C-alpha cells in the first residue's frame, strides 16, 4: 500500500443532454481500500462508476487511474474490472470459459489459463465447477462466477455495481462478509456502488454519499454515522430524530443549544457541517435515548411523553413517543434484553438524553 491515489477524480462531471448526472465530483482513493458510493437510485453513483470503468466519458474533469489520465482510453485498456449488477454471465459458455474469457482475450498461454481459472474459482468457493453450464447456476453462484471472472484478471481496481442487490437477504449478508475477506486478503482496491446503507457500512473502509449527482460527504462508516454533514445524509444513513434547536453560545468544540422539547443542552460541535448557524437542526439517534417509567437520573435532559406506537423488530423494540413541543413523535430504539416489551401505546414515559450523543446538523434547510 502506498500513499499515491490509485484512482483520482478531479472535478468530474457528466451530462446527458440537459440532464446533469454527475457534477463536479472530486475524489481520491487509496490503493487497497474498500470504497463505497452510496446514494438513492438516480443519484449518479452508477454513472460515476461507469466513468471509472470506461463505459462513459466524462463531459468535464479528469479521471486518473494509477496516475495515468484515462481520457479516450476505452474499457478494454483500463486496469479495472467490473462485476455487473445483472452479473452479465455469458449464457453460451460454461463457468470455466466465462472465467477464462479475459485471459484468452489477452492470449495468456493455455496451461496458465487453466491454473488461474481453477485458482479464481477456488477463491470464490466454486472449485471444480468449470464445466457447469451458465444457465444451470443459482443467483449466488452467478454472483461468484462474475466475481471470479473479474478477479482472475488481477485488476488494480475491482468495480462492483450493486453486486448483492439480486440476492436474498441471508445470502446477501453472507456474501458481504466473504467479499470483505476476499478484498482484505487480495489487497485490491474495491469500488462498490450501492443504495443499501447497511451493505456500505459493513463492508467499506470509506463511504462516499451522493445526492443529485453531487458527492456530499466522504468518511469512514463510524464518522458518517456519528457526524453526518447535513440532515439529508443523516436521514439516509440509519434512523434519526430531527429536533429543531437554537444555538445560544459557542466555545471550543462545544455548543450550547436549546432543543425543542428537551430544553438546554451542551452538545459537541460537528466539524463536518456545511453551514453552522444560529438555528440548528439537531439529530438524535433512536438508540441514544433512554426510555423509563420514572424520571431517569444522570441524564443531561429529560422530558415526559406518551407512547403512540410500538414496533417489535426482534433484536430491538421501537417506540414512538409523543413529546410536547416536538411536532413528530420521537423514535426510541431499545435492545430486546429480556424478551419483554415494557411499554404499550398510551403509557406515560420519561425520555433521557446525554448532550454528547446529540448531533449538530447545521443550519436548518427545510
Amino acid at each position, binding site marked *: 500500500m502506498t500513499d499515491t491515489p490509485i484512482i483520482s477524480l478531479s472535478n468530474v462531471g457528466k451530462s446527458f443532454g440537459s440532464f446533469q448526472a454527475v457534477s463536479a465530483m472530486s475524489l481520491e482513493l487509496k490503493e487497497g481500500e474498500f470504497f463505497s458510493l452510496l446514494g438513492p437510485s438516480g443519484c449518479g453513483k452508477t454513472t460515476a462508476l461507469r466513468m471509472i470503468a470506461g463505459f462513459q466519458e466524462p463531459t468535464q474533469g479528469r479521471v486518473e487511474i494509477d496516475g495515468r489520465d484515462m481520457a479516450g482510453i*476505452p474499457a*478494454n485498456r483500463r486496469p479495472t474490472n467490473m462485476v455487473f449488477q*445483472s452479473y452479465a454471465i*455469458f*449464457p453460451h459458455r460454461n463457468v470455466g470459459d466465462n472465467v477464462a*474469457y479475459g485471459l484468452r*482475450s489477452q492470449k495468456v498461454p493455455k496451461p496458465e489459463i487453466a491454473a488461474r481459472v481453477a485458482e479464481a474459482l477456488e477463491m470464490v468457493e466454486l472449485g471444480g465447477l468449470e464445466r457447469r453450464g451458465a444457465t444451470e447456476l443459482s443467483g449466488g453462484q452467478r454472483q461468484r462466477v462474475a466475481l471470479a*471472472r473479474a478477479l482472475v484478471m488481477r485488476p488494480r481496481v475491482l468495480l462492483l455495481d450493486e453486486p448483492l442487490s439480486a440476492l436474498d437477504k441471508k445470502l446477501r449478508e453472507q456474501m458481504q462478509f466473504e467479499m470483505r475477506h476476499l478484498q482484505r486478503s487480495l489487497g485490491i482496491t474495491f469500488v462498490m456502488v450501492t443504495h443499501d446503507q447497511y451493505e456500505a457500512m459493513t463492508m467499506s473502509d470509506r463511504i462516499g454519499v451522493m445526492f443529485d449527482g453531487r458527492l456530499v460527504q466522504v468518511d469512514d462508516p463510524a464518522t458518517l454515522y456519528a457526524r453526518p454533514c447535513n440532515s439529508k445524509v443523516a436521514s439516509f444513513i440509519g434512523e434519526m430524530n430531527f429536533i429543531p434547536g437554537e444555538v445560544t453560545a459557542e466555545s471550543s468544540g462545544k455548543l450550547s443549544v436549546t432543543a425543542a422539547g428537551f430544553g438546554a443542552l451542551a452538545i459537541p460541535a460537528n466539524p463536518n457541517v456545511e453551514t453552522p448557524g444560529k438555528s440548528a437542526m439537531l439529530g438524535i439517534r433512536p438508540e441514544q435515548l433512554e426510555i423509563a417509567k420514572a424520571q431517569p437520573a444522570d441524564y443531561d435532559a429529560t422530558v415526559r411523553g406518551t407512547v403512540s406506537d410500538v414496533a417489535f423488530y426482534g433484536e430491538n423494540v421501537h417506540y414512538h413517543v409523543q413529546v410536547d413541543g416536538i411536532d413528530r413523535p420521537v423514535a426510541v430504539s431499545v435492545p430486546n434484553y429480556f424478551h419483554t416489551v415494557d411499554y404499550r401505546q398510551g403509557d406515560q414515559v420519561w425520555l433521557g438524553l446525554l448532550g454528547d450523543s446529540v448531533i449538530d446538523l447545521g443550519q436548518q434547510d427545510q
Partner: protein
Amino acid sequence: MRRPSGLTAYAFLYLAFLYLPVLFLPLFSFNSGTIVAFPIKGWTLDWYRQLGAQDTLIQALANSLMVGMVSALMSTAMGLFAARAYTRYRFQGSAASEGLVMLPLVVPGIIVASSMLVLFISLGLKPSLTAVILGHTFLALPFAVSILKSAFDDFDVSLEEAARDLGSGVIETFWRVTLPVIAPGIVASILVTFTVSFDEFVLAFFLSGNRPTLPVYIWSQIRFPAKLPNTLALGSLLLLASILLLVVAEYFRRRATKSRV
C-alpha cells in the same frame, strides 16, 4: 368462465374454411386420375416419381434455392445491423426508418413488383435472377428485422460491456459474445426469410425473365391439364418443406428468447 355458446363452433368453421382447401392439394396429389374431382379413382405415387425426371423443374428448383439462400443471407445480414440499431440507440428518424423497413408487409405485391421492374430496367438491370434476389431481399427484410429485434430485445447489454471490460475490442466482442448469443435468432431469421423468398410468386414472375423460380414454373405448368397432377405433387412437397422450415425457425426463435440467463 363460460364461453358464449357457438363461439367454439365458429372458430372451427373459420379454421376449416381457411385450411381445408390447402389439404386438397396433397389429397389429390395421390389420386391416380388426372381430373381433380371426387370421387378419387385410386391411390398412386406416380406423380411424385415423375417429378425427378423433369429437367426444367429441377432447374427451377435450383434457381429458387439459389435465390432463396442469397436473399435470406442478405436480408438477415442487413436486418442484423438494423435490428441492433433500433433496439440499442435512440436516433432521429428511428421510428420513420423502421416504418419504411416494414413497408413491404403492407404494400400490394403487384405494385412493388411493377415499380421494381420499371426501376431495374431504367437502371439497366434486365429481368434476371439477380433482380429477383434484390426484390426478395427487400421483401424479406421486415421479417428479418422483426425476428432479430426480438432477439436483441432479450439481449442484456451488459454482456457486451462485460466483454469490453475483460479486454475485448469492438470486433472481438461482436464475434465472441454478440453473435453467439443471438445465433438462434439469426438461424430463425435465415429460415423464415428463405421461406418468404422460396414461396414468393408475384415479384419473381415480373423479375425472373427467362429463368423461372419454382412458383413461376408451377404457374406455367397449370395451363396444361395433363401436367396438373405433377404440379399438385410438387405443390404438396413445397407445402411440407415450408411448414418444416417455419417450425424449425420457430424453435430457434424461442431458443433465442430464452437465452437470457
